[in-house]
C-alpha cells in the first residue's frame, strides 16, 4: 500500500463495499416493503378528520363558550345538533401582485417609468362599519364535527390508538375529549400574527400529571411562525388543570401530542 501512491488507495476493498451496499439496499428494500409494520410516532391521528379542512372551533374562552353557541335550532326533529361540519371551500391562492410584467426592451421609454409608479395605488383600506374587536353575535360558537367524532371507540376515527401499546385513548376517550376541548377553548387566535393566513401545523407536546396539570410544555414541531408557536404554548400555559386523570388509569402521567391548525 505504501508503494502505489494511488488516489484510490482502497480500491481492493471494493468487494466488501459492494457487499455492504447490497445489504444496505436490501435493508432499504425491506423497509419499503414492510415499513408499514413499524409503529410510527406520528401514526394515524386520533380524531381522524385530519385534513377535512373544517373550520377551527376554538372559542375565545376557557370554560365559557364565547360568544353564544349556535342559535337555537329551529328543527326539533331527530337531532338537536345542526350537524355542524360545514366545510369551508378551500381558498384558491391569489396571484401575487408583485409580478409586474417586464416591458419589452425596445418599448422602454423615458418618462414611462415615473408614470408607472405614479399610477400605483396605495393598498386599499377596507372600511369596516363595525368595530373590529367585536365578535359577531352567534358566530364563533361550536362549529364543525358531528357529535360522533369518536363514534364507537377505536374504530371510526375518533380516538383509536395506534399500534395498540397503550390503551389510554381507548379506555378514557372522554378524557381525551376534555383535553381537546379545553385546549381549543384556550387557544386565542388573535395572538397569531394577523398577516398569517395559512400555516403549517404546529405540534405541541406536554404531559398531564395525575392531578391534571399540564407540565413540560414544549414545541415538538414548529410551524415556522413564531407567533403561532407562541400562541399554542400559551394556550397550554393558560390552563390550570384538565381535571384529575381517570381513577382507573394507573400511570403517573400521560403524554399528549396536540396539534394546532391555523387558518384565517
Amino acid at each position, binding site marked *: 500500500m505504501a508503494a502505489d501512491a494511488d488516489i484510490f488507495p482502497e480500491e481492493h476493498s471494493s468487494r466488501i463495499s459492494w457487499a455492504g451496499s447490497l445489504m444496505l439496499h436490501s435493508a432499504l428494500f425491506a423497509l419499503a416493503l414492510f415499513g408499514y409494520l413499524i409503529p410510527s410516532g406520528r*401514526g394515524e391521528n386520533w380524531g381522524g378528520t385530519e385534513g377535512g379542512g373544517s373550520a377551527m372551533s376554538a372559542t375565545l374562552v376557557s370554560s365559557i363558550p364565547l360568544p353564544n353557541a349556535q342559535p337555537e335550532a329551529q328543527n326539533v326533529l331527530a337531532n338537536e345538533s345542526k350537524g355542524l361540519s360545514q366545510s369551508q371551500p378551500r381558498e384558491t391562492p391569489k396571484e401575487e401582485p408583485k409580478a409586474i410584467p417586464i416591458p419589452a426592451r425596445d418599448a422602454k421609454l423615458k418618462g414611462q417609468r415615473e408614470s408607472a409608479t405614479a399610477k400605483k395605488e396605495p393598498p386599499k383600506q377596507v372600511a369596516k362599519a363595525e368595530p373590529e*374587536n367585536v365578535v359577531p353575535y352567534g358566530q364563533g360558537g361550536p362549529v364543525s364535527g*358531528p357529535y360522533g367524532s369518536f363514534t364507537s371507540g377505536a374504530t371510526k376515527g375518533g380516538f383509536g390508538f395506534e399500534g395498540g*401499546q397503550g390503551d389510554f385513548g381507548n379506555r378514557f376517550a372522554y378524557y381525551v375529549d376534555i383535553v381537546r376541548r379545553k385546549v381549543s377553548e384556550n387557544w386565542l387566535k*388573535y395572538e397569531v400574527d394577523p398577516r398569517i393566513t395559512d400555516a403549517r401545523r404546529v405540534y405541541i407536546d406536554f404531559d398531564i400529571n395525575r392531578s391534571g396539570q399540564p407540565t413540560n410544555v414544549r414545541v415538538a414541531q414548529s410551524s415556522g411562525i413564531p407567533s403561532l408557536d407562541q400562541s399554542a404554548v400559551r394556550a397550554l400555559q393558560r390552563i390550570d388543570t384538565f381535571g384529575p386523570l381517570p381513577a382507573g388509569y394507573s400511570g403517573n402521567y400521560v403524554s399528549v401530542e396536540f396539534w*394546532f391548525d391555523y387558518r384565517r
Partner: protein
Amino acid sequence: MNRLTPLLLTLAAFLTLGTQVYAQDWIRTGTGLGVEKIRLAVPDFKAAANDADSKRLTTAFSVTLWNDLQAAGIFDMVSPSFYPVSQPGTPQDVNLAQWSDPPPNANMLAFGNAVAQGGSLAVQGWLYDVKNPQSPQVLGKQYRESASEDNAKLIAHRFADEIIFRLGGGIQGIAESKIYFVSNRSGTKEIWQMDYDGANQKQLTHVSTMALSPHVSPDGSRVAFSGVSNAEWQILMYSLELNRQVTFPRYQGANLSPAWSSDGKQLAFSSSRSGDAEIYAADVAGGELRRLTTSKGPDVSPTWNPKTNAQIAWVSGRTGLPQIYTMASDGTNVVRMTDQGYAVSPSWAPNGQFLAFAWIRNYGPGAPGASDIYVMDVASKQWVQLTHDGGRNDFPSWSPDGRHIVFQSNRSGRTQIWSMLADGSQVRQLTNSGESTQPNWSFK
C-alpha cells in the same frame, strides 16, 4: 470499522423506530376536530323500592340532578323524549347502543337508583361513556344520608358537582355556592343571601338605614358592604360565622363599594376622605390604607383580578362619563378599557381573562341607550354583548366556575336578580319579591 458504520446506523434506526412508542401512553389530538358540548342523557333515577317515600325522594333527586346539570352550561342535555323506553337503574340494565345511537345520540349517560329504607336514603349513581363500549364507566358513586327531601337534593347537588368536575375539565361545580344581594322586601335595603339557584333566601343585616354593594370574602366568613352609619357612608362588615355585624375602621367622607382580593388579605374600596372619590386599598383589619388613584373625577367600584391579585379594574369619571379602567394594584399602569358610552360595575372573571360590566354604549340625548351586560377579554379588549333588549341590566358578578354571571335586571318589571351562562344563554330569574339588586356571587 468504517465499513460497518452504515450497517450499524441502519440497525440503530430500526431499533429506535421500533421502541420509541412503547414507552408511554400518548394522546394525539388537535384542533379542528370540532368542539362541541357533551351530549348528556340523564334518565330519571329508578326507585329501587316501590314504597311512596322512595318514589318521592327519588323524584326530588332526579329533578335536582337534572337542573344542576342543565345549569352547568357544559352539557347539551338530551331531551327525555329521545330516551329508550326501559329505564336503567343498574349497569346491567344499560344497553349502550340504545343510548349512543340516534335518536339519543348521547356521549354520556348518568343513571342510577335510589331507595329509602329504615330512615336513610341510599343512592347509587353511575356515569357512563356510552360511545366507548370497551370501558364505559367514568364514575360510580354511592351516597347515604338520612331520608329527607333536603338530603335528596343535597346528594343530587354532590353527584352533579362530581359529574361536572369530571367532565368540565377539573373545575368545581357551583351547586353549593351562594349569592349575596340587596333587597328592600323588609322595608329598607338590607343584605340578603340565597343559594345559587335562588332557593333559601334569607336576610342577613339589620342596619335599618340602607345597605348596599355586598361583597363576600373568599373564605365565605364575612360580607363587606357599604351602609349608612351616623349619616355617613361607611364600609361595614357582617360576619357569617357570628351572624352579626363586626367592626371595621371608619373613615371620613363617603366610603363605598368594598371588594375583597381573592387571597382574602386585602380590601379595595372607594373613599372620598380626601374630598374626591378615590380608590383605596387596606388590609382586612382596615390598616395600611393606601391610596391608589389620584386623578380628578370620581373613582369607584374596584374589583381585583382574582387570578393574580396584581390588578384592579374600576370605574373612573376622569374623562367625563364613567369608563372602565385597569391598573396594577399599586396604582401604576393605568389602562382605559372602554372607549365610549357609559360603562360601570366591573367584575373580574375567576380566570383573570375577562371583565364583565354594564355598558350603555350609546349614551346621551337622542341615543337609544340600553344598559346591557358585556364581557371583555382584558388582553385584547375584544368584547361581547351578553344581554339583548331586556330592560336595564347592571351589576354583573361572576360565578366561581367562571361559567355563569349573575346580574340585576328590570326586564320583568321590577328590578330582580337574574343569572345566565357567561355566553348570555340560559337566563333565569332568581328573585321575585320586593326589589333585589347588586348581586355578588361567592368565591366558592
